[in-house]
């Protein structure tokens, strides 16, 4: 019925080829162009800060970057030379401790949330992790100070790592949870369909499929933790010396972020320059982890 209606009508209308031509002065064409321009401009503005920071750090940091910054200790004021080898070691150590604590807990928690939990409880746990990720890092530092530093009566790399672990935990839980949810239900059913049990399905099928996305989450968390100053200020404190391995990390420990904080606010030229160099190294470290995660996520999954 509708078909006849259209065909009857159509036969009376002359087809005008000009009606297909672009009309550059029509309002909707102009509006479309304008909005595309606005969106493009704002996109540009969103990435500008990154490039300004990078180029500023590069110009300031590279001039004071010498090979001995990796191998020497922070200098006293007004003494030329020196470096922050101990701070690089400290940052790597404490981020490593943080990752060792938070990755197993975070990934397991996300597996529970995504694969085994039901209903309200999971919603509450997700909400709680979201709240935790919103807690200011200085508060997390205070908590670690009370929980670890006061009980052990000393600043230590362990306390710093503990604080960073709490910071990393919600990021890892959330990204792993999302990654596991992206694995199609059909694949789980296929695994169960060939007679696998739940734990075989999760460990052998679901988790491998989600690994690239999980690695992305972990590197995000590592990058975030590496740049954090506040949680380390009163957990790991700072030191001018190399770690004394005999103390098993139970001693104040230097870190790049705290070094930048300390040296950027002093009036001494040599320490300010080192702060720039340390900031540059920190950003390079974060950039490297991001690049590694990009390479890891290239593996094909879903």
């Amino acid at each position: 019925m509708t078909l006849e209606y259209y065909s009857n009508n159509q036969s009376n209308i002359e087809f005008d080829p000009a009606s297909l031509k672009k009309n550059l002065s029509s309002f909707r064409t102009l509006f479309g162009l304008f909005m595309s321009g606005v969106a493009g401009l704002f996109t540009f503005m969103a990435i500008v800060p990154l490039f300004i920071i990078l180029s500023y750090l590069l110009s300031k940091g590279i001039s004071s970057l010498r090979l001995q910054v990796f191998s020497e200790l922070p200098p006293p004021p007004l003494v030329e030379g020196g470096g922050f080898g101990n701070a690089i070691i400290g940052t790597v150590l404490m981020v490593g401790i943080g990752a060792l604590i938070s990755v197993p807990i975070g990934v397991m928690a996300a597996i529970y949330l995504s694969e085994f939990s039901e209903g309200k409880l999971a919603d509450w746990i997700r909400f709680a992790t979201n709240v935790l990720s919103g807690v200011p890092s200085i508060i997390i530092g205070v908590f670690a100070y009370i929980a670890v530093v006061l009980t052990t009566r000393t600043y230590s790399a362990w306390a710093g790592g503990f604080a960073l672990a709490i910071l990393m935990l919600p990021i890892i839980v959330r990204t792993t949870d999302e990654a596991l949810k992206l694995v199609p239900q059909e694949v789980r059913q296929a695994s169960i369909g060939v007679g696998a049990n739940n734990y075989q399905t999760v460990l052998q099928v679901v988790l491998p499929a989600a690994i690239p996305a999980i690695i992305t989450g972990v590197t995000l968390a590592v990058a975030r933790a590496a740049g954090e100053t506040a949680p380390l200020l009163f957990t790991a404190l700072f030191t001018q010396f190399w770690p004394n391995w005999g103390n098993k990390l139970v001693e104040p420990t230097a870190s790049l972020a705290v070094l930048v904080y300390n040296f950027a606010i002093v009036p001494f030229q040599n320490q300010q320059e080192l702060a720039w160099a340390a900031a540059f190294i920190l950003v390079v470290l974060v950039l490297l982890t991001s690049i590694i995660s990009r390479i890891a996520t290239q593996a094909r999954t879903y």
Partner: protein
Amino acid sequence: MNKPTFAPEVAPSPNGEIVIKADNVSVFYGDFLAVRDVCLEIPKHKIVAFIGPSGCGKSTMLRCFNRMNELIPGTKVEGKITFYETDLYGSDVDAISVRRKIGMVFQKPNPFPKSIYNNIAYGAWVNHYQGDMDELVERSLRRAFLWDEVKDILYQSGLDLSGGQQQRLCIARAIAIEPEILLMDEPCSALDPISTKNIEDLMQELKQRYTIIIVTHNMQQAARISDLTAFFNVETNDKGDKTGYLVEYAATKSIFETPQQQATLDYVSGRFS
């Protein structure tokens, strides 16, 4: 309520051994009755097709046979389903062992994100297979007519194959653990006609060894490949809930040529009330 007056025949193939028997099976999702009062028997080494409109419970019924429905919380099965003499829902029956004996092929090809080799080996591995894995992989792929296409790329991802090849990989994966029965839930609905024909040919081969139950929306397919056909229909109650039920179950030829029920005739001839 238009209860089916037709009582499905007990043994549509008198000389065949019965593998699965459903006795007054009803399936609930929570309070919602999805399919009710199904009685049917599946004879050994036959292809049985389940046809019917959407929502008639044919897939639900299929998934009862390997307890796949249990993955949906709140599912309840009433009545009795026996596999040979064993009550599939008996308290001492392990669902994982059931799925090992009653394999499944899904609507969308769903290979694991693993190599072709490991897609096959996985099922054997979780079932503690002791024999020669290479030989098992080759045998399963040959039975699924996939060996010649993949023998040189066994260590590439199963996801790199075409849709039709993926589905045959899934069939190979299902038969690698030597099940008794193969449940197929619309296995060709995501495939092109040539891949569909490959799978249909494969099913004719497989029925020498396995009993196959296939859910299909494609009536020509049911007519082409199956020995027996069960027609499910759907009824709507006062509250608007849709419940499926078995209308007629008989030899495929008689379902399509001389159906006993008006509803079956309407459906197979393309008329819907």
